[in-house]
């Protein structure tokens, strides 16, 4: 997860202690905005609106890392849109505006999701999913998938080292050959993930996972006044953005 800057660190800020469900509502609403609007200025505003939250939560460093980590994709999106739209419309201005919008949209999404994942502990997230009546098995699977991403990226590095020691050159050949070069890396990675999944399942079952039909929780998440205030703010901001469309026809 480090690569995307989604690594959660314990924190005590107001954003950290909000109920995951209220942060989730914010995330959904603002994701909807980024998908709905195409005006670059509005998208920039949506993006900027997440910055104060980053500041309050004190996760600036990790947030920057995730933005920086996605710069490559952003450049990719920008260039492809530019070429693609210029090809179809023949207008440089249109192409430029549109590709800026698309890039901003992606950046806003990364920022919004970063705020959520950087300030929400995986345990709380699982618990809130359970309280939202999502079956515990699915909630746990999701949690574990997140948990194993750093393990996986480290393992991929080791496998690459092992194959390079046997003369594999990843950067050799044209684009198709380069993709093929990764087969000796992907196969061990997939096999060892399956092995690990099996091991984890065995380890969990030997510690009586699934023995109790009805699970109870030691900690139960409760929504407090600050949660309702936060949701209220989120909805108000959401409506304010929508009014841009209703009042001024900006989309």
């Amino acid at each position, binding site marked *: 997860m480090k690569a995307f800057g989604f690594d959660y660190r314990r924190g005590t800020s107001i954003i950290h202690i909000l109920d995951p469900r209220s942060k989730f509502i914010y995330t959904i609403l603002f994701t909807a905005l980024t998908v709905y609007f195409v005006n670059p200025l509005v998208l920039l505003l949506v993006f900027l609106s997440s910055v104060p939250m980053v500041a309050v939560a004190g996760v600036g460093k990790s947030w920057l890392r995730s933005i920086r980590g996605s710069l490559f994709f952003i450049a990719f999106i920008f260039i492809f849109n530019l070429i693609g739209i210029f090809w179809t419309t023949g207008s440089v201005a249109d192409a430029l505006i549109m590709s800026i919008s698309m890039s901003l949209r992606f950046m806003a999404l990364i920022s919004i999701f970063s705020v959520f994942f950087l300030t929400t502990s995986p345990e709380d997230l699982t618990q809130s999913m359970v309280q939202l009546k999502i079956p515990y098995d699915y909630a746990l699977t999701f949690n574990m998938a997140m948990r194993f991403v750093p393990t996986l990226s480290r393992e991929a590095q080791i496998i690459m080292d*092992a194959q390079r020691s*046997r003369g*594999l*050159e990843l950067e050799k050949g044209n684009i198709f050959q380069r993709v093929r070069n990764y087969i000796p890396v992907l196969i061990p990675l997939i096999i060892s993930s399956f092995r690990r999944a099996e091991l984890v399942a065995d380890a969990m079952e030997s510690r009586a996972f699934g023995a109790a039909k009805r699970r109870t929780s030691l900690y139960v998440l409760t929504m407090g006044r600050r949660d309702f205030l936060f949701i209220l703010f989120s909805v108000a901001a959401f409506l304010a953005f929508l009014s841009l469309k209703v009042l001024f026809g900006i989309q």
Partner: protein
Amino acid sequence: MISFEDVSYSYSPGRYAIEHINLSIDKGEVVAILGENGAGKTTLIKHINGLLKPQSGSVIVLGMNTKETTVATLARHVGLVFQNPDHQLFAETVEKEIMFALTNFNFPEDEISRRVNWALKEFGLLEYKDRPPFLLSGGERKRLALASVLCYDPQIVILDEPTTGQDYRQKLHLASLIKKLNSESKTVVVVTHDIEFAADFIPRSIIMSKGRIIADGDSEELLTNRELLMSASLIPPQLVELSWDLALNPPTIHFDELVSSVKKLLEGREA
């Protein structure tokens, strides 16, 4: 043949995985690297084929500065077998797995089949030739990983913990393999936690602790040095403990010597 000059490397700022490493290994030497978990052994050997480039200092292998040489070039001369075979096995069959490095290094067709056959026989894998590698047992996978590197006959062979998960017979086989490589004047570096294996079969030991080399020399001398072993959190070989208990002077890592010393003791008693 291999020389490290004041090499340091750190994965994250402020913490060195290896620090001020000075080391030189000649052609035809067999060397063991010992040390606690996280001592920096794997980090050190990854510098020999250029997977890691020194952040300060320099590593010269066969006259090549690793900073200016690609991994592929170095790998042709330096065979590195990783700790966990599951990190490299990927082919559909055992045979194809062994062919992988040979095709990467552009060996001619007939040479490839000759070497594959040699490796299958040498590592007792002939009967599994057409099986998928990941259906082999742990020990067999480990042997396949060895075979898939030794098949291209590198001048320098580096083994990261080759004895883990191997039964005694396979350990003896490994020992005789090392002896054979040595007789072909290959250079062999073995990273191991198996101190008995080092004591029995490897003449030179390098002991690492917390990223530094704390001792380098004759295995017999180092592995009978109580303070040194303690400071590197190493358990002495059983023969050495026995020598200490019997107050033999000097203590030994060789079975024959221990037997003759004990005989002398007994004779002294009878007389």
